[in-house]
């Protein structure tokens, strides 16, 4: 099996490659995918990722329930999705093969850890016969690699325990894939030595396993070719690979810096939002205060209390947490204080699918409070764009003194892509003015402070922070009189305040960007109208349809409340409107109600994003209808 002379292996060029790593939850598949992604990013490919993992930390080993997968598409051109069907499936055990094979393209490559295909594991995965031998994989290119055996072998003299040695097998798989697809090895080797600098034996084992994987590819005579995906011709500049939660966290830090207002995060751990709490709790040198609260309600209340104290109060959660925070968001509507409420949406209802993506909380964001309680809503549409969405949501909250809901989802949160780093000097100035003195003269000539006297342009009330002399005032959730802020239960006053709060939010439409409309599409037969994380799949699908000569426009809405002023014209401009959503048509319902157009909904509520192929087929279906 070994040659002393390196074999000559041909290299074939690919425009793009979709790899799916799958294994048991304990097999380190997320890490493996992440390292493959990072090496590809540093190599200069464009890429997009889709991590998929079970909600259980460690489901029973070897079972279908315990399979964790990570899909990445790398390409030599601009891409927007993690790919439809993978070209390559790496299956570390029978359960991973059984569960993930259906995703693989016909004729695709399957690389398995042969050592895991023993009777016990086959039984757990529900195989009656060994699929490696029964001909069931004849339609695929199968490579059987004894990953565990080789990994243990190369680790045996390193002093590492056999169990730890076995755990390095994911780095063997990574090494093999890195060789097969011409990924640079150095970033991975550097990462291993940095990550395990205090556990030298583990570092040595992982390094040995990784190198063994590369060597195996080169010498095993299994592979006739290696493949290469050249760097993508991306816009010039400095890039980093970023996922949505990190970009969003950094956007919050940026907003705080640009506003010169300290950031306060109140949060309760919840999947898939917790990483924002983790990231921000490391940013204390930016003046960021984080509180891991006793519950979701305390988290948002503490954020609101901090906003009263002159901080940018933020709370991060997922849909179930928003349900609990509703009353406090209503209080913030009444108090007219800045508050950022961030919902990293996941599958619902109830606990639903904690680790899977869904975008079914739009109506909850719009109406999930009692009374007439309007709240501006901003939605992020790609992992890196979460940075700018966070800044925009903070801008609206600070400028208009209102709670703002920022919607992301599990797909954006955990998915990553290369990000052309912005020049921080180009970020918007979010400076706020705090109230410093009286703003009203009474009839008797005394100067007083009225907490609900508004800026004529923004309709925002003054932000008067405790500690400021001369501005002592009381605010609360009881209906109040405009101007003085005094309690007022009068019928006329309530009617006035309800309309005022509605107008305050509606009026923000004057201060948001026009709808994102893609390409020269004035004569299109169909408008595909999206919001949130469907952007990538819609973009790819529309490109494919256009490549076939179809006339398709794509509008993507980032401000869901208030809607952009031009959206009505846009949706009426095209003969057909298709609204793909990861819910049962919530935005479509809003569009139909607001603009009286016969928009059609296309829904996918399965915990996984749309593929471009699915949407492409829907687009053609509507056009041919």
């Amino acid at each position, binding site marked *: 099996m070994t040659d002393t002379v390196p074999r000559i292996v041909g290299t074939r060029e690919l425009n793009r490659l979709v790899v799916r790593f799958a294994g048991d939850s304990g097999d380190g598949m997320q890490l493996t995918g992440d390292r493959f992604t990072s090496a590809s990013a540093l190599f200069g490919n464009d890429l997009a990722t889709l991590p998929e993992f079970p909600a259980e930390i460690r489901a029973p080993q070897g079972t279908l329930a315990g399979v964790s997968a990570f899909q990445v598409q790398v390409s030599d051109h601009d891409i927007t999705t993690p790919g439809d069907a993978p070209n390559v499936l790496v299956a570390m055990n029978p359960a991973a093969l059984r569960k993930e094979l259906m995703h693989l393209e016909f004729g695709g490559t399957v690389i398995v850890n042969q050592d895991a295909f023993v009777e016990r594991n086959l039984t757990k995965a529900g195989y009656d016969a060994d699929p490696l031998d029964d001909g069931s994989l004849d339609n695929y290119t199968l490579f059987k690699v004894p990953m565990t055996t080789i990994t243990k072998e190369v680790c045996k003299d390193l002093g590492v325990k056999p169990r730890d040695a076995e755990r390095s097998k994911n780095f063997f798989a990574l090494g093999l894939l890195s060789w097969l697809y011409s990924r640079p090895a150095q970033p991975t080797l550097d990462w291993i030595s940095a990550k395990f600098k205090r556990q030298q034996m583990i570092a040595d084992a992982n390094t040995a396993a990784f190198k063994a994987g590369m060597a195996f590819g080169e010498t095993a005579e299994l592979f006739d070719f290696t493949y290469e995906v050249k760097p993508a011709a991306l816009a010039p500049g*400095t890039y980093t690979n970023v996922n949505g939660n990190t970009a969003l966290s950094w956007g919050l*830090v940026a907003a705080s810096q640009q506003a010169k207002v300290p950031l306060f995060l109140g949060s309760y751990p919840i999947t898939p939002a917790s990483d924002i709490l983790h990231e921000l709790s490391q940013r*204390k040198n930016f003046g960021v205060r984080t509180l891991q609260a006793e519950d979701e*309600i305390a988290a948002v*209340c503490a954020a609101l209390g901090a*906003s009263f104290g002159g901080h940018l109060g933020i709370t991060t959660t997922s849909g179930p947490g928003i349900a609990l925070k509703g009353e406090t968001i209503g209080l913030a509507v009444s108090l007219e204080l800045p508050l950022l409420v961030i919902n990293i949406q996941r599958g619902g209802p109830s606990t639903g699918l904690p680790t899977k993506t869904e975008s079914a909380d739009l109506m909850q964001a719009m109406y999930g409070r009692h009374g007439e309680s309007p709240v501006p809503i901003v939605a992020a549409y790609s992992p890196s764009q979460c940075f700018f969405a966070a800044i925009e949501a903070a801008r609206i909250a600070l400028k208009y003194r209102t709670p703002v809901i920022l919607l992301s989802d599990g797909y954006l949160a955990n998915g990553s892509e290369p990000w052309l780093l912005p020049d921080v000097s180009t970020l918007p100035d979010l400076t706020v003015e705090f109230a410093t003195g009286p703003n009203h003269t009474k009839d008797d000539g005394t100067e007083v402070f009225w907490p609900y006297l508004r800026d004529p342009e923004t309709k925002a009330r003054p932000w008067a922070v*405790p500690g400021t002399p001369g501005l002592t005032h*009381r605010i609360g959730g009881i209906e109040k009189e405009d101007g003085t802020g005094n309690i007022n239960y009068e019928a006329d006053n309530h009617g006035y305040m309800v309309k005022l709060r509605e107008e305050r939010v509606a009026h923000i439409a004057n201060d948001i960007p026009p709808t994102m409309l893609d390409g020269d599409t004035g004569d299109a037969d169909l408008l595909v109208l999206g919001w949130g994380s469907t952007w990538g799949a819609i973009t790819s699908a529309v490109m494919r349809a256009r490549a076939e000569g179809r006339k398709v426009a794509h509008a993507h809405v980032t401000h869901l409340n208030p809607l952009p002023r031009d959206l009505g014209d846009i949706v009426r401009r095209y003969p057909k409107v298709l609204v793909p959503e990861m819910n049962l048509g919530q935005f479509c319902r809003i569009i139909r109600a607001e603009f009286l157009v016969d928009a059609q909904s296309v829904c996918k509520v399965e915990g996984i994003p749309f593929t471009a192929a699915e949407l492409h087929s829907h687009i053609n279906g509507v056009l041919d209808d």
Partner: protein
Amino acid sequence: MTDVPTTTKADWTSDQEVRWCPGCGDYSILTAVQMLMPELNVRREDTVFVSGIGCAARFPYYMNTYGMHGIHGRAPALATGLAMARPELHVWVVGGDGDMLSIGGNHLLHALRRNVNLNILLFNNQIYGLTKGQYSPTSEIGKVTKSTPAGSIDEPFNPVSVAIGAEASFVARTHDMDRQHMMDMFRRAHDFPGASFVEVFQNCNVFNDGAFGAITKKDKRASMLIPLEHGQPIRFGENDENGVVINPQGSAEVVNVADVGESALLVHDETRQDPSLAFALSRLSAGPFEPTPIGVYRAVERSEYAGEASKQLALAQEQSGPGDLEALLHSRPTWEVS
């Protein structure tokens, strides 16, 4: 702070009409607070009252300070965020027994265990007032109310026991019939660096009139209220004839001093780290019909939460320098495309 201007009660009184029922115990508590404030040497603008919902929670509207009337039960959480954001402020939290022990029980527990620098005043009237007379988490078993026509079957909370069990650093009890005692307790709460919890027995003359009368009426106090004074043997009674001992089982017990001798009495130590004696004292009375200790049960200083959070920020800035956004964005591996 020598430059704090001299103030009077009127300076601390807002222009809002007080809307409690005539005869409500809340009036005397409000007066005690407004009279205390000029003595605390603090500025009005540095003082904030935060509340939840309920009769007691209207309190902030009547104080000429900063104030927030929040939502039911959440005042300790709102105040925690405010105190963390602005550690220099004097933040008071006011609420009733339903607000703080029922819907907001969780927040009270966590504010106490974190030891956030809040002065928490729990007005305990053993009834829901604002919703017109349902039983509360401190109502006695058997209480007949609109929602318990056959009598309450819920075991009530003892607020002082709850606070001590929640790792509270400062725990005191007072009542609305004794302004000077209230002012003393509120002053101690203010002076204490950390979460201070004061239970105030408060009469709801509409829905639970006289709930504490058996112990707080002037002619009952000497025999029914047990004053806790740091460093002093615990004694009470018209002629100080009664005292408190810890019995061999570890429980507090009322005894006749003549029977046991003065040296056997428990000497109150509010600074004792171990909370078990303070807890034992809180269990001495099963309700406002037995001799009940009032005063400071416990005052044990420990790290204050907002201060600790600020220290971590200062340390991070000292170690890593002030935040640099450009550097943050470049903190992970980057590559150039030309």
